[in-house]
């Protein structure tokens, strides 16, 4: 549970990517996720993945990404298997493409979240006009994901200690077992949210709709360069995608896969 969520868990490091403005990183996220969605062949998606991994390497976060990918491997295998078994033609090529697209998409998001602190993002959102209440709500929801994962672990451990086997039994027993898990979890999180709300009140939160943020966001040269490059590459991808050249490129790959 927690290992999968770790893909999106920010860690403070001093790398060019971490230093980039959240808005610039958002542009990169848009580029990568749009490219993963509109490109429809193995080779181009591989190229996207290579670019993403290169950025992760620059951010010294490839290790975290790789570890979390292990947690997602079941899901990838399922996408692969289901598509391979149900598709009418070009089964291997399409199944691989779809699985790779999934990996490209999650990697795009992990590039963003591994290098962007929730509160930096919130500051950027506030700068673009989001009211402070919402930006804080957003910060909190990301901030407390690890706590939630840990609470879940604590409760399921406690239940296991009392002999409840969560992963055993038929569908009905399992559903019942999960309600045993859910009820204390909800109580726990309600209590936690009450404590958080108290602490927020004690720090004077909620009086003003708009405040001057402590950290001044200013787009620097690197940020403009990243945004411009992302826009240009996105335009290029879209343009190439709808040419006959791209069709020919896909046909070439299909012919390599043949009857598989």
């Amino acid at each position, binding site marked *: 549970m927690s290992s999968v969520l770790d893909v999106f868990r920010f860690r403070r490091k001093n790398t060019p990517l971490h230093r980039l403005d959240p808005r610039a990183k958002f542009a990169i996220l848009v580029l990568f996720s749009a490219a993963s969605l509109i490109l429809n062949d193995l080779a181009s998606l591989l190229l996207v993945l290579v670019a993403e991994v290169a950025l992760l390497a620059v951010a010294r976060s490839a290790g975290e990404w790789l570890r979390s990918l292990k947690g997602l491997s079941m899901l990838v295998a399922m996408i692969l298997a289901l598509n391979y078994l149900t598709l009418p033609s070009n089964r291997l090529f399409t199944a691989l493409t779809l699985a790779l697209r999934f990996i490209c998409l999650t990697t795009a998001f992990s590039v963003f979240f591994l290098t962007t602190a929730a509160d930096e993002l919130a500051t950027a959102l506030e700068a673009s006009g989001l009211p402070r209440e919402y930006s804080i709500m957003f*910060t909190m929801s990301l901030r407390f994901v690890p706590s939630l994962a840990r609470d879940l672990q604590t409760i399921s451990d406690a239940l296991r200690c009392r002999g409840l086997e969560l992963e055993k039994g038929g569908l009905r027993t399992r559903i019942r077992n999960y309600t045993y898990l859910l009820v204390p979890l909800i109580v726990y999180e309600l209590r936690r949210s009450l404590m958080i709300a108290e602490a927020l009140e004690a720090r004077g939160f909620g009086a003003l709709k708009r*405040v*001057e943020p*402590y*950290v001044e966001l200013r787009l620097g040269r690197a940020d403009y360069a990243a945004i411009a490059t992302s826009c240009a590459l996105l335009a290029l991808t879209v343009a190439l995608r709808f040419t006959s050249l791209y069709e020919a490129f896909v046909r070439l790959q299909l012919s390599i896969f043949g009857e598989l």
Partner: protein
Amino acid sequence: MALVELIDVHFRYAGSEEYALRGVSLEAEEGEFVLLVGPSGCGKSTLLRVLNGLIPHFYEGDFRGVARVAGLDVPKTPPHVLARHVGMVFQDPENQLFLSSVEREIAFGLENMGLPRSEIRRRVREVLELFGLEELKDRAPYELSGGQQQKVAIASVMALEPRVLAMDEPTANLDPISALEILSLVSRLTREKGVLAIVVEHRLELALRFATRMVVMDGGRIVASGDPRRVVLEASRLVGFPPVVVAHQLLRNRGLIGGAPPLTPEALSEEILGVIGWRR
């Protein structure tokens, strides 16, 4: 006028039968270190919530009596205004630290007050220095040790320059050494800055030495209040004896030593050494 003034305060949480506070009166001045103790459920946290206006503004229920803090009438003052006068630190650092760096954490309350950036910068710098946190300013609070986290929590409420610091079991998650460090930091704030600290703390052996006053609660009432040396004897039924007080009592019963109980093992040793005529 006293900095904190409660007169015959009653409070019952909405949906509960019993009153959590039943006629609490308390006056406290700046520079005091008030140690608030009592059995579980006696209303200590509830009392602190009255000080910063969480009661009656955040928690609904029946409120009666007079509560004035820094000259403000609590039931008529919104919590974000009271936040400038009363800093509140809770037991669990995790639920009171929200941001990705110590520096931002300290700035958060100042942002909420709507201060201009230059003023926020100045105060953040000051607080980082006062609490010796300059080295940690870029670290994420969740990467720090428990003691450091609690220090950051105190720093971020003290940034608002409150005259009252209310703490609800601030050292419950800490080892004894970190706990002593935090408590002596608070004691320093009372002496150097004239802050009034009201601290709920179970571990008497750690906290007693810093207290200038001890207040004991039971069943929603204050049952003893005054000089810690006297109160610790009076209220032992409720709070138990710290070992140093027991040792002193034993020696006194045998006529070996006199006077009021010392509050630290060091003070007791000094006394014993005095009695046996040992000179440095």
